[in-house]
């Protein structure tokens, strides 16, 4: 009798252990979990560029007005006009304006905007200025930080390959140009001597 009870208890324990050790799930559910979704950044930026990004830059602040505000009330300028993803001194600004070309150089085009010399970047199109100044992209919308970083790379590629070359082919000293773009500034180390604009749109005005 005791042997039978021992066997029953043993079988019960074994049954509980086995029951908790294995489980059955539909295979397609498991496969779906493990599927890696690759972020198609090129497609994403292509769609975003025309539909959203250029539209948002249409409402960029006039560069001369912004510069005056930065000179006279920098904290207010940062508070009102800057976009920043997180915490720190750096802010990104959407700007638009027009100016006269002073020189066409290997790495940039220098223009006169009001009484200021402004640098339109044509070589060093890097960084997050255009993405972050737009205010359209938020880091917490992306589980993978690398996907988030790739958006800036793709935007910069687009500027480098599509915005700058046709402009650089034709632009010459003395031309009047209209530009839209982004600038990066540091509130704690503010330098307005020759602001650098990463362009999203460049037009030579006839």
């Amino acid at each position, binding site marked *: 009798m*005791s042997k039978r*009870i*021992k066997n029953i*208890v043993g079988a019960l324990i074994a049954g509980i252990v086995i029951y908790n050790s294995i489980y059955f799930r539909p295979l397609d559910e498991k496969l779906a979990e493990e599927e890696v979704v690759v972020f198609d950044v090129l497609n994403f930026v292509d769609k975003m560029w025309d539909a959203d990004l250029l539209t948002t830059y249409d409402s960029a602040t006039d560069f001369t007005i912004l510069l005056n505000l930065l000179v006279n009330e920098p904290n207010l300028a940062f508070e009102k006009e800057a976009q*920043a*993803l*997180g*915490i*720190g*001194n*750096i802010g990104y600004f959407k700007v638009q304006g027009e100016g006269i070309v002073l020189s066409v150089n290997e790495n940039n085009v220098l223009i006169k905007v009001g009484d200021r010399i402004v640098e339109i970047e044509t070589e*060093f199109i*890097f*960084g*997050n200025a255009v993405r972050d100044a737009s205010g359209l992209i938020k*880091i*917490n919308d992306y*589980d993978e*930080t*690398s996907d988030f*970083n790739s958006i800036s*790379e793709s935007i910069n590629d687009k500027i480098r390959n599509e915005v700058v070359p046709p402009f650089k082919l034709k632009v010459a000293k003395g031309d009047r140009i209209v530009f839209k773009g982004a600038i990066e500034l*540091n509130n*704690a*180390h503010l330098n307005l001597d020759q602001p650098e604009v990463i362009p999203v749109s460049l037009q030579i005005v006839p």
Partner: protein
Amino acid sequence: MKRLINNSLLFLFFGTFILFSCSEKKNKSGDDPKKVAVIISTLNNPWFVILGETAANQANALGYEANIFDSQNNTALETDHFENAIASGYDAILFNPTNADGSIVNVRIAKKAGVPVFCMDREVNATDAATSQILSDSYAGCVAIGKYFVEKLNKKGKYVEILGMVGDNNTWSRSKGFHSVVDYYPDLKMVAQQSADFDRNKAMEVMESILQVHPDINGVFCGNDGMAMGAYQALIAAGKDDQVMVFGFDGTEDVINSIQQKKILATGMQFPLLIAKTAAIYADQYFKGKRDFAQKVPITVEMVNQENVHEYVAYGGDE
């Protein structure tokens, strides 16, 4: 039969005791001050010492007891710290992970026990584990360094990259940010890329070895300032410190001094004081009821070079 019943009861008793004592916090009275555990990847690196001490000091200033735990770059030891912190009744963990993937399980243990975790500087590769992750924007910082690197080397030359710990996302964010610029210039050739685990001595050895094969390099990019100092030491020993430009990342005191002395070219100033204080403040806000923290909070990194170093202090101050 009697023995069987007694043994079963004993088994049930001890099993229940072990099961419920493992991950439950000690019960505390409402009057006990809250405790904050500061778990740091390694205290063998002065940058992380600053991070940990600042976090603990800020927690103290906010009225909490705080203790620092050194994981010695060992994820298993980090697990022990988490388990001890939970069992000892810590109310929050300010955490600098050893491994972006390997550390996830530790954060989840804490979450399950109701202990909020605030990651500092390094992230874990999960967005549903930590309460918030306060991270340096290493990628953007290294884009700026990459641009400066290209300008200083005049778009041509041979260079070496010394990487940090391969299990740390910061290593790859920094490398990718740097390469997102430098790789556009075909006349800039990377002749060697090797990890030195963020360690100064290892970086010196790596640099010495690389110089034997590639004595005519023009630049070195290091994933942190410790490795930059190690690489620079190796270059001095080889008599090449004037020939090779060295770039680091962190903003530590010795590299800031070196930049001021026109030796090392540039670094990315992270702000460990700001990161640590923000994490402690977030813990305080959590204790007071706040729950809607942003999962990732980037802290901007600023490039410090020989032109602007006079505007900066080591570790960024409280900016």
